[in-house]
């Protein structure tokens, strides 16, 4: 996938003009950000906690290799298989190999952005392993063949009637007059049978706790618990930046994660996986595999983008973002949308593929305000724009025009002369102080654009204000 400026603009335009979609985005993001505000207020010192969390995240990343190694050895001691995947292809291969070895034909999946990132679903299908999403939102978009619209709520763009049809087609039941509960029940019946026959369960993971080699998986539907505990094999695919040294650190993470994303004090389910089923355990998988996914992350360590690895994928920055709230998730053409998507997508998948994303921001800074790890997303968007200039990814005409403007502004006489010429040049298209251009030339797409004032301030100053009481 890729996103050029023109692709982004045209997709944004359709999203903006889709009124039901706009309403759906407003409702979902509004509930989330209001929920977040309330949930953080409940904490005695949420600002202090965020500072503390930021410190934990940056200290851990500064010694990431050590923490990952100790995670690996403690996880192995608990009986977990630990795999390192350098890129998407390797991660997919590891999953498929495990499946093939165990003769798996059906896998259940919990919600995982990492699996979206590596397009695991496609790889599994090609390998002849059927995979079924079990998170309701993920399942709906799987049925629809859509990419996720939001990192924590993938199906918010789907209208109720679309969802009904999708579930009807999947279940063969007639659900036209069904209530939400009936829809959930129908989905549950359908998914239950898959849970029981799956040969392996694939999940993501929110936190890797190094001191005990444990995986923490949070979710709201109980499907994550089912996927990780009921099939004989559990595979967790986790970005390698998600590690913390201790349970104390993990506790801070958990205090902020659900509050920042949905406004819950804690998700409904917080699953901890420390190795496979023990001899006297009643349930649990026979094998647990954790795949530590790099896919471009380790390259960011030690550089100007390291801070982005502090992200815990809470989605708070999407919910507050005035751009995301207009253009929605699909416009970013990446599983990661909103401010985090605009930064992480070009970094992981190539700036030359996604030149539009760093430009898709007014740099308002709302994302930095809400990020639990206080990631300076606007700073990184500007850094990426610098990289675009340096790598020659800015259209030639734009680059030249901006350089010419800077050149003009570097010398006040030049500035005076050239702005004077512009005053004359604009006359044919000036009406009541506004520039009126034919619509195909209109750079502001229907917004009235003021022309240069008849006289610049500096002239008014000289003739009327200077030295006097004007």
């Amino acid at each position, binding site marked *: 996938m890729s996103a050029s*400026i023109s692709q*982004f*603009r045209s997709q*944004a*335009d359709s999203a*903006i003009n889709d009124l039901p979609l706009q309403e759906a985005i407003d409702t979902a993001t509004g509930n989330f950000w209001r929920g977040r505000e309330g949930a953080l207020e409940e904490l005695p010192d949420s600002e202090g906690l965020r500072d503390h969390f930021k410190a934990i995240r940056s200290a851990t990343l500064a010694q990431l290799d050590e923490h990952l190694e100790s995670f690996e050895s403690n996880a192995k001691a608990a009986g977990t298989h630990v795999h390192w995947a350098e890129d998407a292809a390797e991660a997919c291969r590891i999953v498929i190999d495990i499946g093939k070895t165990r003769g798996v034909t059906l896998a259940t999946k919990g919600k995982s952005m990492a699996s979206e990132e590596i397009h695991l679903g496609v790889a599994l299908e090609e390998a002849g392993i059927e995979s079924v999403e079990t998170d309701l939102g993920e399942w709906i978009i799987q049925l629809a063949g859509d990419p996720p619209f939001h990192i924590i709520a993938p199906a918010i763009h789907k209208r109720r009637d679309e969802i009904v049809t999708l579930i009807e087609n999947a279940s063969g039941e007639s659900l036209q007059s069904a209530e939400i509960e009936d829809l959930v029940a129908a989905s549950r019946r359908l998914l239950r049978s898959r849970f029981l026959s799956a040969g392996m369960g694939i999940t993501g993971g929110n936190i890797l706790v190094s001191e005990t080699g444990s995986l923490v998986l949070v979710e709201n539907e109980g499907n994550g618990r089912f996927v990780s505990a009921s099939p004989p094999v559990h595979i967790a695919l986790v970005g390698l930046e998600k590690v913390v040294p201790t349970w104390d650190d993990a506790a801070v993470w958990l205090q902020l994660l659900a509050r920042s994303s949905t406004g819950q004090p804690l998700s409904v389910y917080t699953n901890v996986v420390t190795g496979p089923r023990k001899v006297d355990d009643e349930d649990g998988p026979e094998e647990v595999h954790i795949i530590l996914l790099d896919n471009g992350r380790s390259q960011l360590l030690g550089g100007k983008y390291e801070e982005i690895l502090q992200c815990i994928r809470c989605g708070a920055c999407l919910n507050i973002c*005035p*751009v995301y*709230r*207009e*253009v929605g998730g699909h416009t970013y053409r990446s599983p990661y949308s909103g401010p985090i998507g605009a930064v992480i997508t070009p970094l992981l998948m190539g700036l030359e593929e996604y030149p539009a994303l760093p*430009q*898709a*921001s*007014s*740099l*308002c*800074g*709302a994302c*930095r*305000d809400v990020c639990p790890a206080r990631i300076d997303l606007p700073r990184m968007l*500007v850094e*990426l*724009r*610098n*990289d*675009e*200039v340096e790598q020659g990814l*800015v259209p030639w005409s*734009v680059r030249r025009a*901006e*350089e010419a*403007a*800077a050149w003009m*502004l*570097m010398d*006040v006489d030049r*500035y005076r002369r050239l*702005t004077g010429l512009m005053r004359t040049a604009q006359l044919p298209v000036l009406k009541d102080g506004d520039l009126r251009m034919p619509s195909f030339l209109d*750079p*502001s*797409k*229907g*917004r*009235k*654009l*003021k*022309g*240069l*004032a008849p*006289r*610049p*301030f*500096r002239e*008014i*100053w000289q003739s009327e*204000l*200077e030295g006097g*009481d*004007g």
Partner: protein
Amino acid sequence: MSEKTVALFVSCLVDQISPEIGVATVRLLRRAGCQVDFPDAQTCCGQPFFNSGLRNQARDLARRTIEIFEPYDAVVLPSGSCSSMVAAEYVHLFEDDPDWEARAEALGAKTFELSRFLVRQGWAPPGSDAAPTVTYHDSCHANRLLGLGGEARQLLESAGCRVVEMVESDRCCGFGGLFSIKMPEVANAMTREKLRQAVDIEVDVLVSIDPGCLMQMEGLVDPDGPRVRHLACLLEELG
């Protein structure tokens, strides 16, 4: 009130497109007892280039601006965004250049956005019976980088305005400098949302301290909707 000489940095936008904001600013500063100087060499603070990733150009314009304004005791701008560029971002442009970093920091410390300067001067406009009901747009950089917003509301109330809040006073108006030209469809949608919030609370005037935001919102405001005004212009008009 002691006479104080301040250098007025109007910003390129005010100079070329909205000079009336500069005129109102001069009058307010004089009413607040200041001598106003306008260093004629000034052009642009460099923010558009900083935001576009043209860091060298941004640095050149920052150096130029520092040289022009550093002789003064105080610099006042009728623009939250340009103030934040000078007071909060310049130092980041010179992280690898200690001399310029120090000069940037020194200028930043004496650079003030107009509403903050007026409040620090202890000036307050007299109450007016003609004062309209207003709402204040917390423009992004002013609010998030400089913590501004209280000052403007305080001045508006002192002038007799009733200040009503929008649902999200701090939601971006969509301007974002060249963003409004590079992604106009997105910018316009953001502006319409902002204006909708102002229309919902039925105020007479939507006030901002940022010429850029004002230009953006004026470009889409409904003729029957609230008037969109710079704080300085409104205060000056109320007398």
